[in-house]
């Protein structure tokens, strides 16, 4: 075994995140690490790489006991890691992020030119031609994700660990990533791969280890496992019904909202959007095409500089989020860490926040009421938390996502925008979210769902808007909505340029 963990133990107040987990990674294999949200995958990785101090158990590298006390030491041992939340610094340039700690030097000073060259070299092979001297923060999550991967690959002499690296990548980039991963595997590296996309798991991995509730459940050859069994292993139960394609046709309701000529210079070209009651509008496009911008303009997060929004009764004010919310809008943002959760506050407070802000500070929601609300959603969305008073920052990524969904469901808005709602969510929860979407729509709510997962869009949408180059370019309805059609619309003339960029 290249990297081996025996009897790993990690406790957090109120949770045992790892309960005697064993894990073995061979050289030259891609080893998938799977489990529900909160199963302990990220914790295992953090213990292996010295980001967390473990409470017990031992780690062996090449048969020798090692004890990385910091990620720095892990890197020195040849373990490169992409952690779940992109762990790069937006205030540094791409090149600085890539070369941090290993900057080429001349005469004791770091060399700009050397850094630039090294960075370009590291990024080669990912089809990403970006200005490495610009701040990383100027780029989208996807670009950052790729940069993080490139960095980890560069650092990994022996082991590469990828914790949900594909969560915000689209198909083309995933393919490119897998290309790189295979190359590394063939060079004899051991690669740990975490993902909730089972297709990707089956596509790339040699072996699979499943964790549940902090325990090791099984390790098997990927080839011997089928999808259903894998899901059973992960959930410890049958998934009631794997959602299949095809949304039951709706009677198109009356129009409830209409945006006309809404846009913001330099961000998104003016667009029209009509929303009917109980309708799900999907939004597809390449990374950086302007989907998030559309949502932000609609919600007042980035104030529009042209256009109007109105409903049957008259114009609506959506110039700030608070006003948009007052007009019955809701928005679950894409980047949950910076835009979504209030890390130090409890699950209860996070769920009640939007409702409370809407009611104003003078009309507090009684604590008991908040608790009831929180417990209700914890049950309904199956949020894995020891209780409603747990700080939300300590939940696993997928569970944080559910808390944000709960926040907006508690508001019961008439028009809810979900930007990548299933990012980082496990299969069980994924099905759950899709079911919730159905439920909401049945209750008369209208949705705008932004997603990079085309199947998901096809499954839920009544209508799909395709965004390209910061403008809305196509709209598919009813039978037209197929993955193929969407891909074609995205890739229409001009898109190649964008992709090549």
């Amino acid at each position, binding site marked *: 075994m290249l990297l081996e963990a025996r009897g790993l133990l990690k406790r957090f107040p109120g949770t045992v995140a790892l309960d005697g987990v064993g894990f073995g990674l061979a050289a030259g294999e891609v080893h998938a690490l799977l489990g529900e949200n909160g199963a302990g995958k990220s914790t295992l990785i953090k213990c292996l790489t010295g980001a967390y101090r473990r409470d017990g158990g031992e780690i062996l590298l090449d048969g020798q006991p090692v004890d990385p006390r910091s990620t720095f030491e892990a890197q020195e041992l040849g373990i490169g890691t992409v952690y779940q939340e992109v762990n790069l610094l937006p205030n540094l340039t791409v090149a600085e992020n890539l070369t941090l700690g290993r900057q080429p030097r001349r005469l004791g000073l770091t060399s700009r030119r050397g850094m630039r060259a090294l960075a370009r070299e590291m990024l080669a092979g990912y089809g990403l031609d970006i200005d490495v001297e610009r701040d990383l923060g100027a780029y989208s999550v996807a670009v950052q994700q790729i940069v993080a991967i490139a960095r980890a690959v560069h650092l990994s002499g022996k082991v590469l660990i990828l914790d949900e690296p594909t969560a915000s990548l689209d198909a083309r980039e995933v393919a490119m990533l897998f290309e790189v991963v295979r190359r590394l595997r063939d060079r004899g590296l051991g690669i740990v791969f975490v993902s909730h996309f089972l297709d990707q798991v089956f596509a790339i991995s040699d072996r699979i280890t499943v964790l549940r509730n902090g325990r090791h459940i099984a390790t098997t050859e990927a080839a011997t496992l089928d999808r259903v069994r894998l899901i059973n292993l992960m959930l410890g139960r049958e998934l009631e019904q794997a959602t299949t394609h095809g949304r039951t046709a709706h009677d198109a309701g009356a129009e409830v909202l209409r945006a006309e000529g809404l846009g913001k210079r330099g961000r998104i070209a003016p667009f029209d959007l009509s929303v009917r009651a109980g309708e799900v509008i999907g939004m597809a496009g390449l990374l950086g095409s302007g989907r998030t911008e559309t949502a932000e303009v609609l919600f007042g*997060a980035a104030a529009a500089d042209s256009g109007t929004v109105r409903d049957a009764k008259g114009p609506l004010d959506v110039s700030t989020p608070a006003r948009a919310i007052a007009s019955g809008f809701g*928005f679950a943002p894409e980047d949950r860490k910076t835009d*979504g959760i*209030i*890390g130090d506050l409890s699950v209860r407070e996070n769920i009640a926040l939007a409702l409370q802000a809407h009611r104003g500070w003078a009309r507090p929601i009684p604590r008991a009421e908040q608790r009831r609300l929180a417990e209700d959603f914890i049950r309904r969305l199956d949020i894995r938390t020891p209780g409603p008073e747990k700080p939300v920052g300590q939940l696993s990524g997928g569970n944080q996502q559910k808390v944000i969904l709960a926040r907006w469901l508690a508001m019961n808005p008439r028009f809810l925008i979900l930007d990548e709602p299933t990012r980082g969510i496990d299969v069980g929860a994924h099905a759950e979210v899709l079911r919730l979407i159905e439920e909401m729509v049945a209750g008369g709510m209208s949705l705008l769902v932004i997603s990079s997962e085309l199947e998901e869009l096809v499954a839920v949408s009544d209508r799909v808007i395709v965004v390209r180059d910061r403008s809305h370019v196509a709209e598919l309805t009813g039978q037209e909505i197929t993955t193929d059609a969407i891909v074609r619309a995205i890739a229409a003339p001009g898109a190649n340029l964008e992709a090549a960029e």
Partner: protein
Amino acid sequence: MTALLRRIAPQLLTLLAVLVLVTVFFPGFLSVGFSGDRLVGSPIDVLKRGAPVALLAIGMTLVIATRGIDLSVGAVMAICGAVAAAAVDRGWGLGAAIPLALGAGLLCGLWNGFLVAVLRIQPIVATLILMVAGRGIAQLVTAGQILTFSDEGFAFLGSGTFLGLPVPAWAWILAGIVAGLVVRRTALGLLIESVGVNLRASRLAGVDSTVLLVTVYMISGLCAAVAGLIVTGDIRGADANNAGLWLELDAILAVAIGGTSLLGGRFSILASLIGAMIIQSINTGILLAGFPPEFNLVIKAVLVLMILMLQSPRLSDAARGLATRRRRTDEGAAAPRAVKEAPR
């Protein structure tokens, strides 16, 4: 209730330790007696003298909870004291002086809040502007003199006694209770904490952060105004140069000793108030113990450092880790290292 106790336990213990320490150096420290109908004694002195810092700490706690800081409170004290003294001096009476002073405090808070929330200037710098200019404004009001007055009602604010306790002590205790109630019985506390932890996310959840930030700085200004009234009443004169000088640092220290993170988020007004009393006990203790004044700063620095070290989460973690390790080794098991997550 128990949660509250657990929250303020470190502060209470520290206060106790400081009191014991001072008593060692000055044995009569803890004695309280009656003189006529009012209580006298060092503990009462601490309650009274600690009033300005305690009042400032109330506002400062809220400001810090939003991830801000207010360096201007000392200058605002001077402005408000000067305004009140000038009003009394012109014979407008206390009825006009107090509202004017409080209004001035609110105005200062509004200005700070405007800079921070609307112009988005970083809080330290935004309030540094008023810290510098504010004292000038105060001197403008008093024309550079110590504006002395002889209004007994005003003096009562600073040095009077009510039901045995000094009026300043009443002021901060009441202000603390009111602020505590307002913040915790409404949703203000939740919203402040949410803005302090993650401004962007809070805005996206519909929290009106602008109004909230302005409000918080206005509360801080108001607290400073009350503190300014008290020190002015106390010496029966508005001393624009020295009123509240460097008190902002003590107030920030009180909040920090009270365990509220300077990075915003969770806060406790009660703990900050205990922090203020800890600082005042040290100050009074130094005065009573009779060391030469050149030792004051060193003593204070060492005590503050010790207090902070004792309260440091890392140290208590390490101590706990040490305890578990000992237990484990007792059991004969291998000794794993102390848990250190240290979320910062």
